[in-house]
């Protein structure tokens, strides 16, 4: 890497930083609301966004193709006992899977779709590679909420369905009880945990409070379920989605 170039870049960035700070005040004052732009259903947004023909398709393909020459090197590093940590802009999913199937034909390959960024550096023998691809984050993006969608802080029905499908049938059934309760009691503040437990137990979905808690933790982790205290001081569960979204979700997990 050309170090002079870096210096220039750094200079550019620090200029931008101060500029940004300077504008910071005025940008905070900018009172424009997101709702000034029409917000639409997230599912529709995603469908429409996926239909955009990506720019630079050929150039991106050429860039990704250029990494094929590195495959033997990556295989070499793996055999040396390193883990490859690839970074740079763009989805690397297709690239890595292509590498695994073409350069490691003798080995078993397991793909782990990790959805969070928890990574303990010291526990891995990482070997870093800068591999920008500029490929769209299609699959990765499914697990991120989109702005400009209705209720952008909530999970969309689609994302919720994806998460639910990865859970056990019992967990799905517990979620179904909660969802149906919420639909049939639109004015309630939520479903009491005890109530959910007894209903789940009756249907042999959980054998103990511990099992239910395990499911609830999973739901909470993925923001499928939230907890609030109702007027009686009781902890209640609710799904942070609109009634239509819940119905759609139920039909999808059926």
């Amino acid at each position: 890497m050309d170090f002079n170039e870096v210096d220039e870049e750094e200079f550019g960035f620090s200029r931008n930083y101060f500029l940004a700070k300077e504008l910071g005040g005025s940008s905070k004052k900018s009172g424009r609301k997101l709702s000034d732009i029409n917000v639409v259903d997230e599912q529709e947004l995603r469908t429409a966004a996926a239909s955009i023909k990506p720019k630079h398709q050929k150039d991106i393909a050429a860039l990704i193709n250029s990494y094929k020459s590195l495959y033997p090197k990556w295989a070499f590093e793996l055999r040396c006992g390193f883990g490859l940590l690839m970074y740079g802009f763009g989805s690397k999913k297709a690239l890595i899977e292509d590498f695994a199937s073409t350069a490691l034909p003798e080995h078993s390959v397991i793909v782990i779709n990790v959805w969070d960024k928890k990574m303990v550096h010291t526990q891995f023998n990482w070997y870093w590679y800068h591999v920008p691809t500029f490929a769209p984050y299609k699959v990765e993006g499914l697990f991120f909420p989109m702005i400009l969608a209705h209720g952008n802080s909530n999970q969309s029905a689609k994302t919720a369905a994806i998460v639910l499908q990865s859970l056990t049938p019992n967990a799905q059934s517990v979620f179904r009880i909660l969802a149906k309760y919420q639909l049939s009691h639109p004015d309630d503040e939520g479903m009491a945990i005890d109530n959910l437990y007894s209903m789940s137990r009756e249907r042999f979905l959980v054998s103990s409070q511990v099992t239910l808690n395990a499911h609830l933790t999973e739901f909470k982790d993925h923001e499928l379920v939230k907890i609030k205290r109702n007027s009686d001081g009781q902890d209640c569960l609710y799904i942070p989605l609109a009634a239509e979204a819940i119905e759609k979700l139920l039909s999808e997990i059926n």
Partner: protein
Amino acid sequence: MASPGNDAPTTPSIDDAVTDNNLQPFFVLQKGSLRKSERNLSGAVKTRRKIDLSSASPKASEDVEDEREEENMKLRMEAFEIVWSKVESTIKDVLRDINTSVFSEIQNWVHESFNTIKSLGTPDFPEATQSFPIARDASSKKLFTGLVFTKNMEFVDDLLTFEELGKHLKSQGCHVANLSSLDFTTKNGIGGCLRSLLRQFLMSTLDAADMSILASWYGEQNYANPVVVVIDDIERCSGFVLSDFILMLSEWVVKIPVILIMGVATTLDTMRKILPSNALQHLCPYEFTLGIPAERMDAIVKAVLLKPCSGFTIGQKVAVFMRNYFVSQDGTLTSFIRALKIACSLHFYMEPLSVILRECVLEEDNWELGIEKNGLSPELMLKYAFDLPSCQSGEMMEQTSESLAQAFSELKRLQNEWRAVVLCLHEAGKGEKVRLLDLYCEASDPESYNKRKAELDKDPDLPPSGPILIKGHAISEAVRLVRDLSTAQLGKLISIWESLTTGTEVYHRVFALKLLLKMEDGKSSKKDFTVTPKRHTSRIKLNTGKDSKLMSDKAVTVLECMYRDCMQPIECMPFHEIFCFRDVDKLRLALIGDPRRRIQVDLLEFQKLLRCSCCLTGSKALLPTMHDTSIMYNLAQEHGDLINLHDWYQSFKSVVLCPNSSKKKSRQSLLPKKRKEINESGNQSEADLQHYEMKQAQLSLVPQRSSQFAPLMGVMELQITGLIRMPTKRRPDFAQRVAFGL
């Protein structure tokens, strides 16, 4: 708003991208086949074909080339495995040796403590068979506790030490269990620790965690040997659980004489901070101290890089980088060793002749180049070797395998001389914290060697101290320290030098120095005997001081001569590329990475990577043809910590929809005047426009549709890459920038 989805049946679904596999937490992409044997078979077939088709079409010769490359790569991989396993085992041995004295100290203490506990009496039969602890006086509830100070905040280096300590004590007849701080979490509670003990002592996976099980097991062992529980890092343990654990063990100590050994990274105060007084009062502490990381580092550098080990070595820039990485990064040997391994793997990948090192390890001191042993074609190997840059600069050599073997043996000889002098310097500066890695960095500097050589070429009579020593550097510090030594200290040092230089050319100089010292020593003792009562005692002292000064001056001169004549760094020797890794930039990138900065540079300078013809390289203007996320990120640079999503969205639109504006600097897109114009257009018409664009997008009719959706995808991609955070409930109209600057 009408749902456009209904009237757009041809719209591709995102499900195209989402196969079932992608929704699973994990999936098997492919199963390993038994293709290795198949491959070997096909390899044999291919080889035959290689012979048959050697003069056939260019495609076939390409195949042959590929196969040769593949074969060579396989050999290099094997060579790497042999070399690295040698380096790794050397490191392990070194660390074990360093710990030997502390380990035996601990072992003695364990046995003494065990005898003390036993002297309190062993439980009789009825007591032993009861399933509860025996209550005696307070002294019978004392737990002998060895606190091992690691002097290392990063516990990762000490994991191996405690594992080795456990093994050592086991070999001495103790029952040992190693617990880690992970066993002492509030989540698992004391049950977690107990289950771990049962698993390690009884090899049992019982769910019931009960001390009485452990007590009856120990009873079966006839109370013959101490039970040692090693906890590697108490600073990371939950004080609550650890305290419960101590209280429980203290209750049972008569039945199970547990001796605790705990790793402490900081100071004794830690114990008081972590544990409540009721737990502390049961501990009977003894302190032990491990070697500091810098000492261990010196020992590793000595064994791996300065003693004949694997033949693999690192150049000066790499050494300097690794030293700085060790000092400024996390100061752990683990990271240093990882850096060395990456350097080694890079070397074997990049250097075709590195296969030679395989023989170097296997034959150790007797290594001599045998071209045929390396599975390489001799012609190719010779051609490659004599084409190396280091071979171009020197005298012309005959390109034969004999001359290559001779050159290698000369390289080996020069390296041995160099190593011996570095080790002599290290011995001289050892007590005063002159670090071996510092000496290595200075002594392997090709520039300073070339400068020295040029000065000597100009003036061969230059005194040895002339051009060589730079004040404040490790080498000159080591030399200075020799000057201050007494005759007795000098005698010791010279004896060590003698053993370090055995077998090298500098040995005779050290030996001559030793003889001289002996002679001087003889003279001065004679002088002592012939001292007349008239002579003043201070005069004698003065003379002795003078003699010692004279001797140390001579030692310094010898050391300086050694430095001047024998310190040719490997990078100044022909064929060094085969043995020495020098590409510091590649190492830095592989070791540290730079994701946060690089990902920003990727977005801001995407033209350099994509090399497209439509976007101007080097232009600061934002063009509609540019990558959407790149446009979004460029625009984000103009905002503060918080980015107003509405403004951001509008700026994007102005770039994509109004190509004219691209001629302006992107910053101008946010000028107040422009904002005002947008405002004046009113919300209603804005909404209409959005709706229209949405329709267009659904019908996939016009390119402008991207102005609607692309920024959304762009924001999401920036979020995935960790450059921005989503709006919060409190500030729903603003995204937050995470990364500022590079």
